[in-house]
């Protein structure tokens, strides 16, 4: 694609035969080029066990960690509440902290908050902040800062606002320096889970994104969008003696082979979001590879309000054509996990009793026949937005052929896709990090959800959702979640063939890196726990 834009410019500016031949020739092979070095490393479907190795010994203070981060760009920002790219997330977790966060096992735990308590009917939440939490300017982080922060997210319509529920911030009250009481217009029992988004990081009053300060383990030093940012240790961090590192450098990489090369030649100490083909190359220079089996999901989305997907039999048939182990093998080298068309798998309330969905071409064919869609042709519009996304579409198209379904894949550039196709086209793909079930459902599958690619609006499902988010009792909430999951499994608009792996690699001397289920690299950019051996 880059080649194309470059060439069209050359056209306007005097293309010669030499450049034509030269660039036309390279254009043909550019597709195979990016993974070339990695491929040279040899077959690399071996799974890694070396995560444990990165985990031993007694932490020591000092040193610098340099991350070669993928996925950033010119749109990079320091405003953690408006973070979009992977390097934005990396910066956000260095500078700021959310009230709660998904831990490495998928459980929501308080971070900047000491506690979050609902009242009896969940119409009011009381948030108590950590006693010694300070901003980088040395001032204690107070309830008034928290209120400012929440209001900022809401008034700027930042992504975090979608999980605030029926919040009434106008009536929120600062009880004392560390305590904020927030009323809700309707009962909302999952506020604590909804706050675990990366964009729900908290900032102090008068926050200026040009000189960002937060309560996170690292202070801002410098930032050039699309290039590099640097941070230094925050000495008054509440979780002393953490962080261990003195300095943190985050550099953008636009190419995976270069990421691996940089790790091999010692120019960076950590690289993130690799594909399975890079595992061998990353290990060959003594690097440790951390493979995280995550709850992040990459659905193929079907609009249930549009033909042919409005017929539940078509949706069921398309779920049955997928050979999930094969897809996991071909797209992720077997490092991901096969999934059952449901999400939120690490939620403590998740119902584990759903039968494993196996491929069944005959059943799929008969369902399609019954629906009068034996000769189904589907345009699948996708974009390279997540690791393996395009490859998964291609594997799907091949597998669907066995049931007589012809899939035509259109691969759009991200800016084209997000302007014209995202959440609009009937058949597409999406990308979600792991979130607790009800939080994800509120964003993806209930009626009017802001990121609903399926456009599902089912009264029965929505009623269950409304009951669940009001239910304070976890046992009863679990029952409701189970019913919702059963609905997703039977009739939902998402084909979820896998939970994709997050593959990171660090140099031999980097310690404290654990695998995590969140789907965010390096265990949710867990900077404060990393240290380097001298």
């Amino acid at each position: 694609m880059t080649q194309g834009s470059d060439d069209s410019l050359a056209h306007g500016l005097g293309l010669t035969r030499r450049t034509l031949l030269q660039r036309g020739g390279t254009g043909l092979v550019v597709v195979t080029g990016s993974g070339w070095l990695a491929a040279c490393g040899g077959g690399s479907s071996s799974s890694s066990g070396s995560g444990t190795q990165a985990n031993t010994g007694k932490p020591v203070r000092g040193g610098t960690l340099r991350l070669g981060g993928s996925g950033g760009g010119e749109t990079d920002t320091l405003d953690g509440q408006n973070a979009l790219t992977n390097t934005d997330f990396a910066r956000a977790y260095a500078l700021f902290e959310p009230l709660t966060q998904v831990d490495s096992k998928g459980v929501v735990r308080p971070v900047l908050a000491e506690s979050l308590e609902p009242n009896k009917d969940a119409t009011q939440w009381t948030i108590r902040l950590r006693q010694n939490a300070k901003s980088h300017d040395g001032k204690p982080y107070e309830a008034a800062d928290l209120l400012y922060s929440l209001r900022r997210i809401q008034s700027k319509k930042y992504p975090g606002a979608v999980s605030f529920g029926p919040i009434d911030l106008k009536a929120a009250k600062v009880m004392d320096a560390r305590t904020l009481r927030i009323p809700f217009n309707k009962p909302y029992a999952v506020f604590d889970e909804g706050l675990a988004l990366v964009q729900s990081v908290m900032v102090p009053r008068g926050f200026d994104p040009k000189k960002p300060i937060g309560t996170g383990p690292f202070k801002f030093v410098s930032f050039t969008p699309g290039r590099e940012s640097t941070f230094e240790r925050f000495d008054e961090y509440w979780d002393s003696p953490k962080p261990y590192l003195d300095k943190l450098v985050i550099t953008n990489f636009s190419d995976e082979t270069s990421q691996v090369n940089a790790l091999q030649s010692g120019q960076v100490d950590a690289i993130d979001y690799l594909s399975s083909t890079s595992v061998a190359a990353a290990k060959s220079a003594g690097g440790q590879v951390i493979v995280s089996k995550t709850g992040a999901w990459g659905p193929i989305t079907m609009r249930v309000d549009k033909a042919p997907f409005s017929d539940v039999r078509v949706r069921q048939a398309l779920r049955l054509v997928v050979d999930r182990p094969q897809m996991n093998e071909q797209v992720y080298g077997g490092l991901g996990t096969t999934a059952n068309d449901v999400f939120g798998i690490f939620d403590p309330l998740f119902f584990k009793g759903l039968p494993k969905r196996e491929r069944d071409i005959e059943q799929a064919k008969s369902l399609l026949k019954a629906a009068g869609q034996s000769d189904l042709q589907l345009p699948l519009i996708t974009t390279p937005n997540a690791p393996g996304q395009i490859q998964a579409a291609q594997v799907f198209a091949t597998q669907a052929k066995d049931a007589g379904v012809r899939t035509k894949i259109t691969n759009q550039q991200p800016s084209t896709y997000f302007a014209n196709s995202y959440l609009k086209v009937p058949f597409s793909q999406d990308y979600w990090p792991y979130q607790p079930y009800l939080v994800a459902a509120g964003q993806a599958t209930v009626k009017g959800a802001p990121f609903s690619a399926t456009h599902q609006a089912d009264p029965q499902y929505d009623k269950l959702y409304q009951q669940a988010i009001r239910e304070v009792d976890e046992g009863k909430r679990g029952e409701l979640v189970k019913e919702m999951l059963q609905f997703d499994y039977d009739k939902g608009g998402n084909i979820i063939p896998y939970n994709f792996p997050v593959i990171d690699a660090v140099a031999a001397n980097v310690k404290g890196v654990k695998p995590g289920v969140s789907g965010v690299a390096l265990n949710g950019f867990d900077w404060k726990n990393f240290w380097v051996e001298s």
Partner: protein
Amino acid sequence: MSTLSAPEPASPAVAAGPRPGRVRGAHPVREMLAWRIPLGVLSVIFVAILTYLATQVLPGDAASSILGQSATPERLALVRKQLGLDEPVLTGLWNWMSGLVQGDFGTSLVQARPVSEVIGPRVLNSVVLLVVVAVLSTLIGAVAGVVAAHYRDRWFDDTISTLSLVAIALPEFVVGVLVILVFAVGIFNWFPAVSLIPPQERIWNDLSKLVLPVLTLVIVTTPYMFRMIRAATIEALQSDYAEVAELKGVSAPRLLFRHALPNALAPAVQVFGLNVLYLAGGIVLVETVFQYPGIGLALVSAIQSRDVPVIQFLVVVLAIFYVMLNIVTDVIVLLSTPRRRAPR
């Protein structure tokens, strides 16, 4: 000397530029400039307008690339308004052009900083790379070409000619990856594999980061120079005046560098021009392999994020450079071909 060569060999320069000499008596160089400079200015303006219109028909805009996966219709409308993307196309073009006349290149849509501040350091990085590579590849190509012409069809010529064919056949990013494998991560661990330059640093402060990108581009560009010089020198050596010089007892180096090489200059300048054009804007793949922060990558990411002012700035800078370079090479060709310099 040149009076000895009876039939005029067709020079590539004739095909490249408009034929000079319409008005009898005017100096060909002055005459060419009088014609080419206004045409060049027109070309640049035309390119600028065309690029602006092209960015308008691209699907998506800066707002959708800023918001990405969080692009709900509500937020898209909000950001579009903030960025002024809702104004009509012609108004936008007019604002941009009137700003340009006042030396204001506008503000990057996605970074909210002046374009010159965003792109300036990258232009500098590209210029350094371009100059170093152009000088090295010209010197190496010229010397190797002349020597190969002298030892024509002997082992030195055969080896070097074959190697240059191999180098031409290899795509530039393959050369880049091979160079990294040999000199950075595979066999030797001599140089950094990627050219990470902290934004506040300049590339010349750490020359080791320049070595592999330069080596790659020298391998990619030198063969063209080498082959052209070799062919032109052989042609010159076969001419009558070279034979006369040889019969007079002129030494081999003097024959090659004093008599043959100057006659090979005109085609060499053309190749030099093409190499420099390629280095100025077409090395995106090499920049990607080395993560070298030059303008090629900047242009690609500006197009991807639909950052119109940055696209415009880069395209106009490149257009001016291309036009100037074409004029300069044509002038040099004219000056280095005495028989065409005289007024007709």
